[in-house]
């Protein structure tokens, strides 16, 4: 049994069995979801052992014929980037099960079934090596999230769920058109085969064609990221989703977009990507600053974290479109960091909502007195989120800024502004929520972390520290893969990478 296949099939089987569990016993659904998601996580940890870090290419391949005409293959494999994103998904799913333990009281069985189905979709998106299969997983992941938001969300959940679905759908149908167009030209959906054809020149697009195809892919991904100005679905979806939905949405689903850009849009259409890079970088920077400014004035904690996501994801996009090794590494690392820290922030906000049943900042104050451990954990997460050295985000942001500086120094200056702003809004929120006078309503509703909640936060905090202190254990395979992506983006490009300054050339050679 191939390990990747196992990681994909375990939650799928879990989903089917969860559907068959009795509705009358919610506990059975909870324990089942926890068990299967933990087993999946263990299986994905085993991936680390099998994964050969010295190889940049796809590993652990499973390649089965699914449909013969047109030939569509069930072809999955992992590379240095998708490996970590799969691990991120499998790592967060049991955490989501745990934070939903008491939070979800109605239709428990369906909730956990959808959560497991979501895991299948997400893992599949990162592993698919066939464009068609990729699209299938891409769309399939949409459905459970739609239900998670719509059924178990807050007041405006229906609006948010429909908006989320329609935005993503509108973007992805254009991507489908582009995928079919690619198939008609290349005669295959196999991603590696298409790249081969591009590299050997058997498949070539005119500049105009390439630009349209790139945009068709890019818009679909940019909506998911979300890149300013396509981000408007995100605050609604995040705020209205139940805690587990917000965590999965922010931590993993947004990465589908950035992963798509990195894995598909750049290697397939390098010339168009490079031509658009300055514009996209500007949009990313606008997103960084705009997201931070809007986050600052939010009266709602969840909305604040949601807008901070817009800002953080701007860094990822900026790193990718810097077209430098460091920038790409930073972007990937930042994808993982954001998954951990923002996931943790949403989880912690969710824990506070479970206690106080409010998301408004003004309803809190003095929580540090009532629940010191919760406050400490929240502080560590806040510091990680604003990029304190020795915690994870620092590494990613540093690399991205360095990459951006190599590409265009002005980009780095503007983006660095976002780092400063993030410190402002996060610390200001922390101050208002956790310090100050302890209100009675808070005191009576704010017990400290219980055992289940410790089980949620400890792994997250541990990851923040580990990724901040010893990034090498993650960045090695990432670097190999991003180097390959960078190489692919120089295929058929009329001009070579325009690196400014001799120092930067040294850096890119050093890899």
């Amino acid at each position: 049994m191939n390990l990747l296949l196992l990681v994909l099939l375990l939650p799928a089987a879990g989903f089917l069995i969860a559907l068959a569990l009795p509705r009358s016993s919610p506990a059975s659904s909870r324990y089942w979801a926890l068990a299967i998601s933990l087993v999946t996580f263990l299986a994905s940890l085993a991936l680390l052992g099998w994964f050969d870090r010295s190889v940049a290419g796809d590993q652990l391949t499973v390649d089965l014929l699914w449909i013969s005409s047109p030939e569509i293959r069930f072809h999955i494999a992992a590379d240095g980037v998708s490996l970590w994103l799969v691990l991120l998904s499998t790592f967060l799913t049991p955490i989501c099960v745990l934070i939903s333990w008491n939070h979800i009281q109605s239709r428990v069985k369906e909730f956990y079934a959808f959560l497991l189905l979501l895991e299948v979709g997400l893992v599949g998106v990162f592993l698919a090596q066939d464009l068609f299969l990729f699209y299938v997983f891409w769309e399939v992941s949409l459905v459970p999230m739609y239900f998670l938001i719509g059924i178990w969300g807050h007041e405006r959940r229906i609006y948010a769920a429909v908006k989320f679905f329609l935005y993503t759908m509108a973007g992805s149908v254009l991507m489908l058109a582009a995928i079919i167009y690619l198939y008609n030209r290349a005669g295959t959906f196999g991603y590696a085969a298409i790249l081969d054809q591009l590299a050997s020149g058997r498949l070539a697009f005119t500049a105009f064609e390439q630009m349209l195809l790139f945009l068709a892919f890019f818009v679909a991904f940019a909506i998911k990221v979300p890149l300013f100005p396509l981000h408007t679905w995100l605050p609604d979806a995040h705020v209205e989703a139940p805690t587990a939905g917000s965590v999965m949405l922010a931590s993993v689903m947004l990465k589908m977009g950035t992963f798509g850009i990195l894995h598909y849009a750049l290697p397939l259409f390098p010339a168009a990507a490079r031509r658009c890079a300055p514009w996209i970088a500007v949009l990313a920077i606008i997103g960084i600053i705009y997201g931070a400014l809007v986050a600052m004035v939010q009266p709602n904690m969840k909305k604040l974290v949601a807008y901070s996501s817009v800002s953080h994801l701007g860094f990822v996009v900026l790193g990718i479109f810097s077209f430098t090794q460091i920038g790409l590494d930073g972007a990937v690392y930042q994808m993982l960091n954001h998954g951990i820290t923002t996931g943790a922030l949403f989880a912690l906000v969710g824990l506070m909502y479970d206690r106080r049943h409010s998301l408004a900042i003004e309803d809190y104050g003095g929580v540090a007195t009532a629940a010191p451990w919760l406050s400490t954990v929240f502080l560590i997460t806040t510091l990680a989120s604003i990029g304190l050295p020795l915690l994870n985000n620092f590494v990613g942001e540093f690399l991205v800024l360095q990459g951006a500086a190599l590409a265009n120094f002005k980009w780095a200056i503007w983006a660095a502004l976002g780092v400063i702003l993030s410190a402002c809004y996060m610390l200001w929120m922390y101050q208002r929520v956790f310090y100050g006078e302890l209100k009675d309503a808070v005191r009576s509703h704010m017990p400290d972390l219980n055992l289940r909640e410790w089980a949620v936060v400890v792994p997250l905090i541990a990851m923040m520290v580990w990724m901040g202190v010893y990034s090498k254990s993650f960045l090695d395979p990432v670097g190999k893969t991003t180097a390959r992506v960078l190489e692919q983006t120089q295929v058929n490009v009329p001009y070579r990478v325009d690196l400014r300054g001799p120092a930067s050339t040294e850096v890119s050679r050093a890899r």
Partner: protein
Amino acid sequence: MPASPIFNPTDLIRFLPEIILTAMGTLIMVLDPLLNRRESKVYGTLSLATLLAAILAAIYAYSDAGPAFGGMLIVDGFATFFRVLVLGVGILTILPSFSFLKRQQAETSEFHALLLFSIAGQSIMAAANDLIIIFIGLEISSIASYILAGYLRDDKRANEAALKYFLLGSFATGFFLYGVALIYGETGSINLSVVHAVVTGPDAPLPVMVGLAAALMFVGLAFKVSASPFQIWAPDVYQGAPTPVSAFLSAGPKAAAFAIFLRIFMTAFAPIGHAWAPLVWASALLSMTIGNFAALLQTNVKRMLAYSSIAHAGYVMVALASRSEVGIAAAMFYLAAYACMNVGAFAVVSHLSGKGERYQSIEDFAGLAQKQPFVAAMLSIFLLSLIGVPLTGGFFGKFYIFKAALESHLVWLTVLGLLNSAVAAYYYLRLLVMMYFRDPGEAASSAEPLTPAFSAALILPAIGTLVLGIFPGWVLDFAGRSASLVK
């Protein structure tokens, strides 16, 4: 043809499905006064058995494929595909009708007899290779459908639906007949293979006359498939007709009409394809756009599904516009997927509508997931398929159609069509929202418990939808092999 035309056994075997249907339809009508029992149990079960037998007969006939009655009929893969499809639609129409007819206190033998006759007409259309036979099939199917649309005769809306359908339908058939007459005058034949040979041959008639005939037939056929700009009747008829009949109309006659549409335009008129392609292109775009945008505004579920069926006719027209065998195969696949998902969706509507079909608004689906989670789950599968979410037949259908369109360089039609399908997601989602995100209302609370027949009416199309979505190769390979129509 040396053998006697009537008693040639090969001919009869190739015509067996229609013989079975007609004989049993007549028998059912005769049984009614003899048995003096007005129960669907008897006639419905008999009809189901008849349809199953006809399916077997159709498959058996295909084992010895070829023309029948001097080339008037032709049993090929294409014909067999559509025969099985319309017969299957018949089964899926009868299964939910048991409880529906009982609830409306309208259990008669006529319903089933008419249904069998209508299906017999469609089955003839599927296998016809001759313009007059096509016309006869069309009329058999249509006349029975007109009556079925007004089957609940005390219902004002049903009466309106039937009358409208009949009047407009007759006009459309008239146009079709003009086209047939013109073709006969120009080419001296009504056999499609002969017409094709004459049109491509040295003594070809004036292209403009052939084009005129094609345009006239296009009017008639576009009406039958409810493609724009001849779709006006569909919402009123689908809304007014009894729900199982609406389900039937949206799948069976439509599939059969598309079968002859494809057969005529891809054989006889294939040589002048460049002339009618813009017409089909425009009709496809109009149908998709009008259907989807009008559906956004509907509050009545049947009316919404009617507009959605116009939009789906538009998708199939895209396949026709691509004028290739891949396109034909895609259209065949799509019609099969569409039959499953749409008949399934209508079955849920008929289940929920209650006595006198009171509950038809989208609001009435509120909270169905809490009251009857199984029904809601099944309807979700159909709706997701109608939206075109992967792993459902609707997705692969759209995928194959737009793939065929792109192969024929219809880039704009593809882009506009796909954007259309994103618009469509909205109104299907409204039903999902109602079922899952709202608290139960009156309709969901008063919905009847499931009967075995009705469960089958949901499970069978759901299986069909999922199988077409997960293993599309089974059907697509067959469709691909059967798509070369020019004999």
